């Protein structure tokens, strides 16, 4: 935590005994009870906790599904159907896991957008941001490999297309593709490779999440004003304030999640994945899972050669570049002001970026034909321009709004007139109910 000193005082003998040997209760107390959080956090800041829940949901449902799944091409598809039909609650566990992946991504996208809006990546939180980007990258790998496991048509053909990206890399491309596939095409070794890695990566994610949370507790949370914590009145203890707010956010999120699981469990999936993979018959339209669609659109936007780079390699570079650019955001943004609340122009471009990203996703589900292609190209251009042109230039030209002096001042200004609270009520927040 930012303060450095711990306020944990063991009360009983056994607590003192543990504290002297392995101060885990102290760590938990300092990180999740006494940890000071800005008092003005809104619900956009609950997605971190929601993501933690989703990671746990995915790991637990995954571990349980593995008790029934068979990672062999002759059995995989049937074993998933046995889960759906015969295993007690199997339909629930599998729908939870499949929709859980989607909701994990919904939460992570909202979490990333919150970071972009409030400038959470700016110094001293660059490492925190980069660790987040690494988690996102690991999630993409895990999600992609998990989608292969049911061994449906989209599983097999998605794997064919994605591993095909690697052939675009000069010299080592084909070698790399065969390494991933364990052969010349998507077959049994591919399935066993992906199954093993799909089981491993979530635990790697959990490890990086620990680093991410560690980094967060060193630098402290940002807040909608983007102003650092200056005094004690700016903060509240994590428990009960942030805990109960996070809990409410989680329940609302879980309610939407449950709605999908119980009423429209196949809405986010693709019908073709209920047909077993046939390596001789490609479906009419191969589309990835929805959470990859914006990148799929960027991939297909590059229909032309750029100098020595042919369109195939160009598309792959653009797609990976779209993710790679995120890592450099802390240095691409030149503004001295953190939060979009005080940056009118950034705010505008940010919302355009958000709409553009959704539009890219929609385009990703469309065939590469007709007007979709120039639309993909224009959208891709804006995607990169936002990071590479708008972010660096805006910091130089934009005139930010007047910043409040502190979080407390911002809170008081916001509530002035709206509440009839006496000013003194804000000074000493109650610590525990």
């Amino acid at each position, binding site marked *: 935590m930012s303060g450095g000193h711990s306020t944990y005082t063991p009360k009983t003998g056994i607590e003192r005994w543990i504290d002297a040997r392995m101060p885990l209760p102290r760590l938990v107390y300092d990180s999740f009870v006494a940890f000071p959080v800005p008092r003005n956090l809104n619900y956009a800041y609950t997605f971190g906790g929601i993501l933690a829940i989703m990671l746990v949901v995915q790991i637990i449902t995954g571990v*349980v599904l593995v*008790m*029934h799944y068979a990672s062999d091409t002759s059995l995989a598809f049937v074993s998933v159907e*046995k889960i759906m*039909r015969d*295993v*007690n*609650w199997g339909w*629930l566990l599998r729908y939870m896991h499949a929709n859980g992946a989607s909701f994990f991504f919904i939460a992570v996208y909202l979490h990333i957008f919150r970071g972009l809006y409030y400038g959470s990546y700016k110094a001293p939180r660059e490492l925190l941001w980069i660790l987040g980007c690494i988690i996102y990258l690991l999630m993409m790998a895990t999600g992609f490999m998990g989608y292969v496991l049911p061994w449906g048509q989209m599983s097999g053909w998605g794997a064919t297309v994605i591993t095909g990206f690697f052939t675009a890399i000069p010299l080592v491309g084909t070698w790399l593709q065969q390494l991933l596939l364990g052969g010349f095409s998507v077959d049994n070794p591919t399935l066993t490779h992906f199954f093993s890695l799909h089981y491993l990566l979530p635990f790697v994610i959990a490890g990086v999440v620990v680093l991410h949370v560690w980094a967060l507790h060193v630098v402290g949370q940002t807040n909608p004003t983007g102003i650092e914590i200056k005094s004690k009145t700016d903060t509240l203890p994590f428990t009960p304030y942030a805990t109960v707010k996070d809990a409410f956010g989680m329940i609302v999120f879980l309610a939407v999640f449950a709605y999908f699981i119980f009423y429209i469990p196949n809405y986010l999936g693709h019908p073709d994945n209920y047909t077993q993979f046939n390596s001789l018959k490609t479906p009419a339209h191969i589309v990835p899972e929805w959470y990859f669609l914006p990148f799929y659109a960027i991939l297909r936007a590059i229909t032309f050669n750029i100098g020595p780079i042919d369109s195939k390699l160009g598309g792959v570079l653009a797609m990976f570049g779209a993710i790679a650019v995120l890592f450099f955001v802390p240095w691409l943004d030149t503004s001295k002001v953190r939060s979009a609340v005080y940056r009118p122009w950034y705010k505008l471009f940010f919302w355009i970026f958000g709409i553009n990203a959704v539009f890219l996703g929609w385009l990703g589900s469309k065939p590469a034909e007709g007007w979709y292609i120039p639309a993909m190209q224009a959208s891709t251009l804006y995607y990169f321009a936002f990071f590479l042109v708008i972010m660096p230039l805006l910091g130089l030209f934009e005139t930010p709004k007047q910043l409040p002096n502190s979080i407390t001042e911002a809170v008081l200004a916001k509530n002035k007139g709206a509440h009839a609270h006496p000013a003194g009520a804000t000074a000493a927040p109650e610590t525990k109910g």
Partner: protein
Amino acid sequence: MSATDHSDVTRRDFLYVATGTAAVVGTAAAAWPFIDQMRPDASTLAQSSIEVEVGSLQAGSSLVVKWRGKPVFVRNRTPEEIKAAQDTPMADLKDPIARNGNLPSDAPATDVDRSAGKDKENWIVMVGVCTHLGCVPLGQQGDFGGWFCPCHGSHYDTAGRIRKGPAPMNLEVPVYSFISDTKIRIG
């Protein structure tokens, strides 16, 4: 503290207790599917009972069928085997309980209670798993002409009762019934 403050505190405590209870109940309910999924699934349960044709079995011959993943011995016993078992004094039995799933759990291990019952004493149906450590005993061997487990030397008599060796109990008789004169249903 004023009276209004006090009622406020009570209401707040009630709220906290209710919320906490709901959280515990919700977590417990959510945990159940994760535990329940480990029980036998529908396809396993569908094969938990089998039907066996025994009409072709002559006196003195046996049949081994697989039931719930375990061997089941079905034997049409000879009159000599039945007599040998009937003549055994109860005091000689190591385990005096019939261990017959079709009878009450305290039924004595008489020959008739080990067999398919009155008038069907020639039939004996047993799970072929030694009650010691789970090996499969060999038929018509050992000191009593019944079954003999080679793993640790348990001897069963012609009614499948443990007579000598480390096994603690008679061979288990599964739930079964004759659905016709020549067909039995196990499980």
